[in-house]
């Protein structure tokens, strides 16, 4: 469930970031900052997915990189005044972190 919420939040964030970049007159459309937010929010669900699917060693490295990406994307969203994007990314991050520490672990042989 938490994994699904984190993926859903991250994908929602990616859609919002793309909309902020492409929609005319958002105040940030076509800007470098909005493009960075797009990159961050596209990488975020990929990172969440891969870290859940990877082995124990890679899992923590991927999780750390995913969290850093998410935090930077949320900060970017804050300074782009894209509050919905920031909220979606934070929900995704929170769900991901809870899932990471409390959810079922993938066991590799």
């Amino acid at each position, binding site marked *: 469930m938490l994994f699904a919420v984190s993926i859903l939040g991250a994908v929602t964030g990616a859609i919002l970031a793309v909309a902020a970049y492409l929609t005319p*007159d958002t*105040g940030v459309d076509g*800007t*470098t900052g909005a493009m960075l937010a797009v990159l961050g929010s596209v990488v975020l669900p990929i990172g969440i997915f891969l870290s859940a699917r990877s082995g124990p060693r890679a899992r923590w490295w991927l999780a750390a990189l995913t969290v850093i990406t998410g935090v930077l994307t949320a900060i970017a969203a804050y300074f*782009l005044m894209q509050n919905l994007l920031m909220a979606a990314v934070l929900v995704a991050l929170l769900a991901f972190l809870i899932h990471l520490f409390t959810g079922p672990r993938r066991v590799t042989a």
Partner: protein
Amino acid sequence: MRHIPRLAALCLLAASPLQAEQPEWNTFNGNLAATKFADAATLTPEAMARLERAWEFRTGDVSDGSGDLPETVWSATPIYANQTLYLGTPFYRIIALDPATGAERWSYDTKSTLEALTQPALKNRGVAYWESGTEGICEKRVLIGTMDATLHAVDADTGLPCTDFGQNGVLNVNKWNDTNAVFPFSLLQPPTVVGDTILIGWAGKDWAYTVEPPGNLMAVDARTGELLWDTGFIPPEMIPVTGTANIWSSMSADPELGLVYVPVSSPSPNYWGGNRTDPIPLATSIAAIRIDTGEVAWSFQHVHHDIWDYDTPSAPTLIDLQRDGQTVPALVQTTKQGFIFVLDRRTGAPLFPVEERAVPASDAEGEQVSPTQPFADVPVPTINHAAMPAVWPLADLLSLGQCTKDRATYRYEGLYTPPSEQGSFLWPATAGGNNWGGAAVDPRTGILYVNTSQVVQVLRLIPRATYAAEVEAATGGGPASGNEAGFYAQEGSPYGIELFEWRNSLGLPCWAPPFGTFSAYDLNTGERLYERPFGLAQQWGFYGLRSWGSPTLGGPVITSGGVILIGASMDNRVRALDAATGTEIWSDLVAAPAVSIPAVFTHQGADYVVWAVGGNSILKPRVADQVVAYRLDPP
């Protein structure tokens, strides 16, 4: 007899502020006094929550400069007159709109050349309006100027040319450009109409030449375009060696005194004055000109021997002030260098002390700076002249100390530090401080409201012998300059120049914020009531903190209900501020920086605020063609 109380009540109601209406907004600054005061009492801080976007209109006249056309800069004040909204566009068209719906009624195309003949962009600040007071074709006219120096007059009801004006409705103003004519008289600022007289200033090509057309003010007949008089601002004996001192901004007028008040710019070249060491008393001055004859009644020069391009940037604002129990007809001039000069508009005598103070000397070849310049400590300047802003630690850290190194490299010895070969800081920047948006003044209280850019630039003189090579090395043969930044030749002088904002290698400002402020002053006492950061700076799309503020272009309007209405900031927002405190109470996102003065008026019982949203790459590279109207219906 018993009707008297009811009559009295009705009279009181009629005089009540809540019944106040702004029936027209028929000049660039709202009225000839340039107060930018709207008698719209329903526009109160409390009512701003009910202010709604009524409509928007796109003119289609916009260019970001990436194609065949130069970029556009659109700073038009919409004109509300004849129950119609009139706009000039940067493609030099007039568009007439229904104020209630934004529906187009007619448009007129001047078919002007769309080339940046003088300014670096296609630029327009709107239209002017004249009416005779009688009914008939062309008894109401809308006037627009063009980059290539023609003035067009069309009927306000139909948009058809007024054939009795000039030649078939077109006056070739450039026919009077007969001295040192290295560029045309670009008519970017709408002319000022006083009675049946049209007063025309013009814009030139900054920083390009040493010998240029001498600045003048022309008066023409509103019906025929016939030249009534022409007053020059460069002494005749100096015309062979210099030029400009033109009027590129708006003007104000007092028809009772028979005077028009004009903001005169600096002489050429702008950043070196070795060719013009004799006095030019009318350059960088406020001049009062008799409307009927063109005679100079008085003038007040606020920069002697200007080598900073600190043009007088805006129309002086006319207001009556209280002094020792007497009402004094006054004039208030905000300036690029941040001084607020308050003068008696009958004589030009300062109403607060103005002191000549020693300023730094120049080491540039042939330069002879003025040993003193006028300083006015009251009202407190909008720029802190006591010290340049400190190095911004964030920008310094991110550039590994570049800002600190720059601070030690370039020359700064206070206001009026002269340009130099080592590079000198311009604080305030060449665009000010305060620019063409000017101030708004509530004539009932004598309180002035003004937005200020807090920007530091660096100006470097480049000896002629090495100028071409330096430009080639820096640009690789590309464009030498953009919109008020880059390399400029100052042909005919010993120096070209390089001008740039003081930023680190990442593009962040090297000076500590705020980058823009909004202030209020009591002009009766000179006291500053408040100064607050205004707007949000923006870079790469990221907004700055509120405490950083934003540089601004454009001006404020004050309503009788106590609201300031202003765009002007970098962040694509138009705002309402509580005039009593300067705090933001309403804002809306628009398509680009609204580098314009809004029109505020009452139409069919509702109050409207209309902005032209056009952008200016001086603030950031975002242009638009949006007209956006907000309506406040009666409660």
